[in-house]
């Protein structure tokens, strides 16, 4: 029992990782965009679980908050509005199916083998202590202030660009 409890974290980690992988793989084979979106949402939630188990709770929270709560909601909106049911007769995969699969399975294998052999296994000594929200935020705003500012500039640019594209849309509407 104690053994099982001590390993519960690891077991859950493996389970979440496996579920995330399966949902990611399902994204390639499902036909309907909405189901792909559901698979992606579940993949993101499982990844959030993985982050949580690693002790990075705030990253887990932001993973679900930003990816699921903002990005995927927007995506589901687009799918709802575009009504992509018309493509049911069409082909699911493009002409690049086989080259894509072969090339990328090779890539995945190379990456996997690379990690398998070279990576240091355990965390390096005392450096592996988990860091919490307070430490992270202090570091974010003092050491990495440039990144912070760049992020906000990027967001501003995105907002302006989105507005520009929407305006283009409007022009087509009325023109």
């Amino acid at each position, binding site marked *: 029992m104690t053994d099982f*409890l001590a390993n519960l974290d690891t077991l859950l980690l493996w389970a979440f990782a496996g579920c995330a992988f399966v949902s990611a793989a399902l994204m390639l084979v499902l036909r309907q965009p909405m189901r792909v979106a559901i698979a992606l949402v579940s993949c993101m939630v499982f990844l*959030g679980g993985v982050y949580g188990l690693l002790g990075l709770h*705030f990253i887990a929270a*932001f993973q679900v908050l930003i990816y699921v*709560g903002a990005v995927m*909601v927007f995506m589901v909106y687009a799918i709802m509005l575009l009504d992509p049911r018309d493509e049911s007769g069409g082909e699911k995969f493009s002409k690049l199916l086989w080259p894509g699969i072969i090339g990328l399975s090779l890539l995945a294998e190379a990456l996997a083998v690379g990690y398998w052999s070279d990576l240091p296994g355990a965390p390096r000594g005392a450096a592996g202590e988990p860091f919490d929200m307070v430490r992270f935020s202090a570091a974010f705003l003092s050491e990495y202030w440039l990144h912070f500012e760049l992020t906000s500039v990027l967001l501003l640019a995105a907002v302006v660009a989105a507005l520009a594209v929407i305006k283009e849309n409007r022009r087509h509407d009325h023109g």
Partner: protein
Amino acid sequence: MIADLVISLVFIGYAISVLMGFGTILTWVERKQAAVMSDRIGANRAYIRIPGTQVKLVWLGLFHGMADGLKMLLKEDFKPRTYDWYAYAVAPWVVFTPVLLVFAVIPFGGSLTPARLWEPLSAFFGDKTWPMQIATLDAGILIVFAFSGLTIIGAMLAGWSSSNKFSLLGALRAGSQMISYELVLGLTVLGLILVYGTVNLDAMVRQQSGIVLGFLPAWGIVYQPFAATLFLAAAIAENKRIPFDLPEAESELIAGYFTEYSAMKMGLFMFAEFIEIAIIGALFTTLFLGGYNLPYMSDAGFAFPGGAAVAMPHGAVVVTQLGTFLLKVFLVCSFQILIRWTLPRFRYDQVLMFAWKFMFPLALANLCVTAVVVWAVRS
């Protein structure tokens, strides 16, 4: 290790029974309170007959929640001819589960030391003390927002997969409304985070235990009355209840995104809504009403400003804190129901306008003022 597990399981059981209890009771409270507010008698017919006798336990109709649940379970599970049955089946659970999970980060009591509760327990639990909270996470309030993001997806899936125009409209409305108000919700809480300097809900509650100005309890609502109002309004909008219930406005959209649902699937949506009332109550209590704290009360007992003190044993303190929390949550729930039966519904453009042009700037202004004040006080 095993003691941890046992304590966690006890807490989880307590949390789930509290939420389910609130979900069931609130269906009755809503009807009964509406009736009392409008000079009626209200739901009072459901009863349980003691087997073998003619004694009927009516208890003011308290069993109406159970009767509702039973009815939902026994109804025909009608399935529309939908384009995507998978999304249709999974949507109620996507709405329901996150609502339950949110309670994991909310502290529903102070600290619990089983050894001081009852002497023989120390053989098993040792001298350890546990905070009465299922998951003590440093992300705290962020988890709450993350899970409410999941609920949006569920509502939109439900509306889209029903192949019904009303459902689709309801889903669109639900999505935009919930995103808009979640932003306002987050902004209002930011001011509180500035005041307390933490996002951990347990730490927030512990900071609300003192007294300010000699007599006022150091609750969040004293520091941030404005944010409290905005928070409650945004939270009600997030829960899609009157006056913000445009996604499920009966007179225009039948039932909005769950029009096509029946039996227990529909019951899950309703249940999620009622549990979310309790969750909003718990969040508001935790953030603004001092959580489980009573004024003048600490872990040792009461200590009144006049110098009088009442010492209390650990068990009594624990029970008082649990009871205080539940009472506060119930009062906030009752206030939400009061709002629901008082205000008329907005128009849809007004709902979004209200979020973006009225509440958003106000929340932003509140945040700026708070930041300046906190900076001035701290430096």
